[in-house]
């Protein structure tokens, strides 16, 4: 790969959402040079920008924190760690208010600012400004396509494509942080178009494993014509086309809510009826989520009075839980010189088997970003005296294993999406259906790895397809290996929890995918020693 330009930074952050921003800020505060490269534009790209993350937010009161952690440990079903929860509560509480110079905090109704929940576009605009104020250099529209490794086995930067010109640029760094978000397999989920699992693929090519990929049965309800944020739909009643009311367990029912909706949607159109929504919502929606209101205004639909068709949008590993394995308290991965933060990293440390969505994810993205940024800055000094020779680690799309030929891109994406996200497969996982999906995903991977080859912008697209296919294979293999039901990983043929599977599962490998058990998580409290 020949680069047409070169840049250097102590710390390189790959991504442009909230995790990337906090990582860049955390590193820059240590006085090192920082470059951020984003596939999109930092400020508008990623699910943070289109969302409105409500952070896990508990005042530093011992009893309150203990109670919040106890509830979260319970949800996590043995796969999370109390010490991580304490840290992210503390970091979030102390650092989120720092966006105040650039963010229009609203009132908390009691004379102070309301901090814990922030609106996406304003939040990312503020984080971009805060990063710039700290001297961070931001390159928008520069997706990373592969990691670089030096002769000592340390990650030494990336190759990226400047989308405006199609040129390859080489960025050398002392330490590198992947904050590339999760993967929603191009489901149409709001804000997720650029989250195709690129970070997972790049990390795996460098030898990292993925953890928690089986916890990926997460969906959000939206109008059938576009994914929006979901505030108005929680009280919805559901009807079929003939006007018969459907028997759908409430959203709190989790998997059975999804199953009932999925079953109905497989049979025909499902219409939502919001006449039961909290009465004040109608007057407030436009002030809270203006873009949700626009999705209806512009179709001439009165959402509180007219029924409208809905569907479920897959969230993959975004509000699922899996990602790159973290090996220490500094958010290091298994690969020297490489850190991970936000949805690119596993959130099992704080979410365990549950969804990270709804509070913990954003507290994790902020905290893991700051932690990784600070630790990467510390290491970057070592990186200043690194060997000069580096090697690109990208395989699929760069070096086809067999002859180069055009691959069916749309077909590959739609097969991947169907095998991971289709309602029948996702809501009723069985050994048999997972094995058959695994077979089809192998074929897609083989086709891409054997034949795909491109350059510039075209290579970016091929890498996205390879990343989605690889991510789907890890999710599927982990779902097979978790031969039980635990949290978000529900198996129709294994409805119970298996005491012998109370550990995390690591998926790894590209040519061959394997899943192994991580050493069991430390017990919550030291066990009393029998006298």
């Amino acid at each position, binding site marked *: 790969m020949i680069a047409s330009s070169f840049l250097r930074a102590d710390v390189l952050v790959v991504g442009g959402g909230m995790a990337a921003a906090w990582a860049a800020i955390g590193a820059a505060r240590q006085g090192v040079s920082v470059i951020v490269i984003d596939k999109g534009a930092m400020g508008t790209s990623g699910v943070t920008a289109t969302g409105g993350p409500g952070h896990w937010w508990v005042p530093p009161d011992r009893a309150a924190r203990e109670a919040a952690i106890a509830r979260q440990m319970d949800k996590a079903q043995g796969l999370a760690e109390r010490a991580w929860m304490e840290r992210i509560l503390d970091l979030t509480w102390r650092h989120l208010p720092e966006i105040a110079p650039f963010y229009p905090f609203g009132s908390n109704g009691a004379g102070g600012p309301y901090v814990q929940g922030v609106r996406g576009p304003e939040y990312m605009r503020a984080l971009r400004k805060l990063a710039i104020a700290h001297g961070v250099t931001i390159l928008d529209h520069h997706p990373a396509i592969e990691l670089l490794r030096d002769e000592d086995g340390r990650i030494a930067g990336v190759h990226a494509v400047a989308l405006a010109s199609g040129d390859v640029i080489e960025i050398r760094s002392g330490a590198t942080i992947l904050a590339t978000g999760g993967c929603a397999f191009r489901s149409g989920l709001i804000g997720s178009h650029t989250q195709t699992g690129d970070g997972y693929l790049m990390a795996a090519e460098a030898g990292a494993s993925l953890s928690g990929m089986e916890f990926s049965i997460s969906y959000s309800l939206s109008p059938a014509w576009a994914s929006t944020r979901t505030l108005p739909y929680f009280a919805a009643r559901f009807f079929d086309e003939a006007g018969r009311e459907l*028997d759908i367990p409430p959203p709190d029912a989790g998997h059975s809510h999804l199953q009932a909706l999925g079953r109905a949607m497989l049979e025909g159109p499902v219409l939502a009826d919001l006449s039961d929504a909290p009465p004040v919502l109608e007057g407030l929606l436009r002030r809270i989520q203006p873009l949700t209101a626009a999705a209806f205004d512009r179709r001439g639909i009165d959402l509180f009075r007219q029924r409208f068709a809905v569907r479920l949008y897959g969230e993959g590993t975004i509000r699922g839980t899996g990602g790159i394995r973290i090996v220490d308290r500094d958010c290091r991965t298994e690969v020297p010189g490489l850190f991970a933060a936000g949805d690119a990293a596993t959130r099992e440390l704080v979410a365990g088997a549950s969804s990270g969505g709804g509070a913990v994810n954003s507290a994790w993205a902020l905290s893991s970003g700051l932690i990784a940024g600070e630790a990467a800055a510390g290491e970057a000094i070592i990186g200043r005296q690194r060997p000069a020779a580096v090697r690109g680690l990208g395989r699929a799309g760069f070096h086809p294993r067999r002859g180069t030929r055009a691959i069916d891109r749309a077909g590959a994406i739609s097969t991947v999406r169907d095998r991971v996200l289709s309602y029948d497969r996702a809501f009723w996982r069985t050994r048999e259906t997972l094995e058959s999906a695994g077979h089809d995903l192998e074929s897609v991977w083989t086709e891409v790895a054997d034949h795909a080859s491109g350059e510039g912008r075209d290579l970016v697209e091929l890498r996205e397809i390879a990343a989605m296919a690889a991510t789907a294979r890890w999710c599927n293999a982990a779902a097979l290996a978790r031969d039980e039901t635990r949290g978000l990983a529900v198996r129709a043929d294994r409805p119970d929890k298996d005491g012998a599977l109370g550990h995390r599962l690591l998926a790894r490998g590209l040519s061959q995918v394997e899943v192994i058990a991580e050493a069991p998580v430390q017990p919550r409290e030291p066990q009393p020693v029998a006298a």
Partner: protein
Amino acid sequence: MIAAIVEARCTGCNACVGACPTRVLEPAAKVPLIARLDACQTCYLCELACEADAIWVAPGEDDATAPAEPVLLASGQLGQVRRDHGWNAPLDGGQLDDYRLLGPLLREGSEIAARRYAAGRTSEAR
């Protein structure tokens, strides 16, 4: 999908080109070109970036049809999401004063659904 950039309003500043997270737009002599519509994720963030209120995003993820320009100009929808956001208001403008109600309203919705479901179950059991 982005469906219209109203020529009469566009100042050619290209802010939308830089803001688009999926690079749908290409800079052009005056009005930016909608060059890669299939990458549009219907996020409306180009509208927030447009100081001239010239952009209109159609609500469907697969639909880029727009009303005729005079209809659009009369619709009140150009710039609507920017006004609703209070995007250019000062930081202490109060544009997020109702935002704290998001969580409570969401929980209230969930509880309404849960109560209705439980009530339906008991009436069936009778």
